[in-house]
């Protein structure tokens, strides 16, 4: 009876120790398997050349008054338009609602997003529909007939 009382705590400790050993080994093994898998699934950072200025593929006189065209601004779409008054303006073409690409509506004479009927005026300001913010505006410069669009600083 007495020896049992002395022996029993030692036995529990040994069992606990083995349990701990097995548990940490299993945990270590699982970590060694899942750590690389998790790192693998996280997409690697692609060095994105942060575009701050692009020269468009078409000349300034190829954009008539009251029309707009989509162009590539780095990896994003941009929209260039000529107001009925003859002024060139450029904005990011990504609707501030859910990232659809906006277009120029000649009949309405402003920018429109087809996805959820969002409207922006010719300054890029959101005037109707779901868009919560105005479109990001770009600077437009015409050098020798070529359009250069750059980020507004």
């Amino acid at each position, binding site marked *: 009876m007495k020896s049992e009382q002395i022996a029993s705590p030692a036995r529990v400790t040994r069992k606990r120790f083995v349990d701990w050993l097995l548990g940490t080994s299993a945990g270590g093994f699982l970590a060694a398997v899942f750590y*690389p*898998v998790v*790192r*693998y*699934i*996280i997409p*690697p950072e*692609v060095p994105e050349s942060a575009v701050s200025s692009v020269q468009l593929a078409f000349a300034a006189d190829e954009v008539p008054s009251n029309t707009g065209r989509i162009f590539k601004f780095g990896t994003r779409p941009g929209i260039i338009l000529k107001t009925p008054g003859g002024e060139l303006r450029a904005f990011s073409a990504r609707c501030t609602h859910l990232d659809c690409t906006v277009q120029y509506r000649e009949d309405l004479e402003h920018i429109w997003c087809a996805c959820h009927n969002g409207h922006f005026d010719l300054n890029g300001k959101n005037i109707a529909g779901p868009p919560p913010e105005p479109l990001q505006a770009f600077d437009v410069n015409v050098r020798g007939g070529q359009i250069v669009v750059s980020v507004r600083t």
Partner: protein
Amino acid sequence: MTESRSLLRRALAETGRWLDDRIGFTAVVPFIKKKRVPVHRHSFWYYIGGMALFLFLLQIATGILLLFYYRPSAEGAYESVQFLMAEVEFGWLIRSIHSWGANLMIFMAFVHLFSVMLLKAYRAPREITWMTGVGLLFVCMGLGFTGYLLPWNELAFFATRVGTEIPGVVPVVGPFVRGLLRGGEDISGATLTRFYALHVSVLPALAFMLVELHVLLVQ
């Protein structure tokens, strides 16, 4: 601590009972728990089959991971593999495991085949286990053959051209079969998408069905 544990256990037991009332899975529990297999001094040789199964599951897991980055097109395939190897963290590891695992799985399948053959374990009542096993061997080699093209490098291109030329010399149906495999006259992007479809859907589905039957019939 112990209170919360018993609470958790009770919740689990209740969920199990709820599910069992609707699905009735307890009927298969004894079947899954205990399976009688012959034990003898040559049992050691059947471990090889278990290793082949383990490697098969490893191939499924790493194959799914490779699908996250692989692009099955003539323009994108080679680039996506290079990207995987150079840019993706542990991409080299996942691809290397898939490649080594494939070779080892075929090796294990062959060792398993020869041990079963030499121990005469293919006889009644184990014929269907043997037949599904031979079927699995061919499916595995099909997976190896179709997977070999997917890196879309020079070696893959010419190996597949030679490999698809072999059925081409069969009399009468040869050219038709070759065209069927290649998806055209020569190896092209059409062959790549074809082999990709076989490699990631058709052959794995076949392998799954055969493995299930094969393991179910172990006796």
